[in-house]
């Protein structure tokens, strides 16, 4: 009888262990979810600069403001009065934009040496509508870039031999 009771007790304890182990078991229930990592491959857009901005030779008494349009027309104004001439816009070939909408963003203006307050202008045809900060459709493009700048006293533009090379970056940004 005592042996039988012992047997029963062991059986009950085993059942008890089984019942308490099940809810906390980490293997009894393992929810999992599959994560998909989507990735698309495209040919990067290219921008090939065919020419830089050239303002030619400016002669006079020193100009306060100089502007080169995307059509190459140079306008200067200041103490010497209005001056107009011909320069050369920068020309950049753009390709592989596919169907993406793109923006043109200028930055990193580097003036100095009497030249400051620069601002780029661009158009998709010579003398056309300014495309700075205005999204346009993709496709092969030719970009014409002009610029405005101010000239401070003593810049020495009137010497003719003084070459100034302000610069800036033009970025093509996908949307």
């Amino acid at each position, binding site marked *: *009888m005592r042996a039988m*009771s012992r047997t029963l*007790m062991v059986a*009950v304890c085993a059942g*008890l262990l089984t*019942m*308490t182990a099940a*809810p*906390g078991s*980490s*293997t009894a*229930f*393992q*929810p*999992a*979810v*599959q*994560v*998909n*990592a*989507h*990735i*698309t*491959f*495209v*040919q*990067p*857009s290219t921008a090939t600069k065919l020419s830089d901005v050239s303002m030619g030779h400016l002669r006079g008494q020193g100009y306060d403001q100089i502007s080169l349009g995307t059509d190459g027309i140079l306008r200067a104004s200041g103490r010497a009065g209005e001056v107009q001439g011909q320069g050369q816009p920068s020309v950049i070939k753009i390709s592989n934009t596919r169907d*993406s909408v793109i923006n043109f963003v200028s930055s990193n203006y580097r003036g100095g040496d009497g030249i400051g307050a620069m601002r780029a202008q661009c158009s998709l045809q010579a003398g056309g509508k300014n495309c700075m900060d205005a999204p346009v459709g993709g496709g092969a493009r030719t970009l014409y870039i002009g610029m405005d700048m101010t000239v401070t006293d003593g810049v020495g533009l009137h010497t003719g031999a003084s070459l100034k090379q302000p610069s800036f970056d033009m970025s093509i940004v*996908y*949307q």
Partner: protein
Amino acid sequence: MRTKLLIAALAVAITGLANAPAAFSATQSVTANIRFDTPLSLTKTADIDFGSVTAGSASTYRIATTGSVSTVSGTGAYLTGTTQAASITIAGSATQTLNISVGGYTAQGGVTPSNARCAYNGGGEQACTYAAAAAPAAGKVLLVGADVAADGTQVAGATATPTFTVTVVYN
């Protein structure tokens, strides 16, 4: 005859048990322990999206749990498109901590995933191995990023969808 003797012996034994004094009885109280809790549930609300990267470049890219994509190695780069980390909402017990793990990395289209990174319940980004993450209760978000290595065979316009598995269990 033998059967009769056996029956007689059993009858005597039963009678003996019935007549046993109370002092010889033993009683054991058995308690049945059982706990009830909420089952774990995982609800994926977003997959990983690397956006568009350079075609034809053997490069490895990383997407952080914030969704930003960077180049780990190679000359390729993220170019365009919306990017996002995976987002999984975990719900369940308000008291049981979690063990979170990642495995089953599966390449597809020449793109191999690895090194999953996680951010659970607003915490910082770390390897996706949690020994005792906070109990999820009504719902806590697990953000998941990863690395993918492209073998450079991908042409422009190609897409790939490598996968891996996130597993969550109660401790």
